[in-house]
């Protein structure tokens, strides 16, 4: 084997574990939990694409699931913080509409944070 062969093999042996870390430490979530004021959370897969209408305390919230991500696209609340939050896709990420009492969270194997101070 030439020197270039050895360098390449070594680079792969170092690079692959790095790739595992990169991809698996922030693995995109597989499911979405939708929580409302009443009842247990609803669990939906993040694939295929769909739109869900959820009844909240003030009115309806509409959540769009698209290509493994999710976001609020409409909400009965007044300041629309939930819509401004945009797309969420990493495990543990969440977006909440407190006035309408609807919250969505991506479920996954290993969330980067156990809790977020918001």
């Amino acid at each position, binding site marked *: 084997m030439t020197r270039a062969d050895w360098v390449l093999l070594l680079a792969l042996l170092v690079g692959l574990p790095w790739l595992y870390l990169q991809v698996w430490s922030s693995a995109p979530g597989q499911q979405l939990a939708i929580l409302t004021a009443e009842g247990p959370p609803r669990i939906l897969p993040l694939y295929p694409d769909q739109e869900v209408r959820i009844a909240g305390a003030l009115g309806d919230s509409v959540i769009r699931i698209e290509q493994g991500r999710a976001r609020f696209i409409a909400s009965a609340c007044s300041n629309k913080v939930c819509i401004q939050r945009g797309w969420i896709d990493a495990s543990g990420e969440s977006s909440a509409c407190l006035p309408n009492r609807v919250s969505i969270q991506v479920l996954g194997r290993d969330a980067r944070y*156990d*809790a977020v*101070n918001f």
Partner: protein
Amino acid sequence: MTRALLAGLLLLALAGCERAPEVHQHAFFALGTLVEVSVADPDPQRASRAAEAVEGIFREDHQLWHAWHPGPLLDLNRALAAGRGARPHPSIHYLLERAAPLAERSGYRFDPAVGGLVRLWGFHADTPPEGPPPGAAALRDWREHKPSLADLYWDEDQVFSRNPALQLDFGAFAKGYAVDQAIARLRALGIENAIVNAGGDLRAIGRRADRPWRIGIRHPRAPEVLASIAIEGDESLFTSGDYERYFEHEGRRYHHILDPFSGQPATGTTSVTVLHTDATTADAAATALFVAGPEHWQEVARSMGLRHVLLIDAAGVAHLSPAMAERIHFETDPPPPLRLSEPLP
């Protein structure tokens, strides 16, 4: 041979992900926020029972401390407004006892006697107000009467107010106390590793089995995590931000953290994070430091006995105590501009 190799590889990979312990998660809405309970316990049934017990506590507190729904706090506020004395509900009695020294040490920047002001701005309701802000006359009126917790006095087990404008609101304080109660209940049920997170108000005990708990702190101006802190043992992490509740009127933003002295939303700060042993103190402190602002937060932190403080000012500069700097890890690239304070005792 190749199949065996692959099968082995897959097994290895799967074993890698199975190792993380099961953390039981439970979430619900109470006290105007989303409460998340995480319990790491080898017994999943005990974990789920404990998490539900926590929900029970928050639901009960929600009833007790609602300042404008019928309940013991509304009764007390009516009595105080009418100049009568009243015997408060035991849990409100306890909150008042805890709040009094904290308010005093904060120079009354944290003050649960601002119920009237909160109502004036409309931040008392479940849904954020739509404005407009109160008029100059109403605010002048508030400053002239300026009730504070120091106006309360006790006669036996009855509480009286020297100031008829005094209305209690535990919005800035009740979550901390509820989180402390929840942790006490979890411990009584034999749980040693858990997080109770009531919006920006969190207390964590124990660890996550394989590692300490990892807590993210929200960026006050972007939907991302600004910094993270590892917590192990027993600590509370509280964040107060101007992004939590606000309304916009004629292009100006008015948030819910009110300065009792000016009667206006406190200026100069966008968020304050406090790390402390008990949640009740951390909760009061986060509000007081927010009101104190980038110029005066260090004095207030000293008199309240805090060591770990992070304050983000309106320009995005992160002011932090040296003890906090040792614990915190900024997650944004680049990190915000930092300004280190003198060590807090």
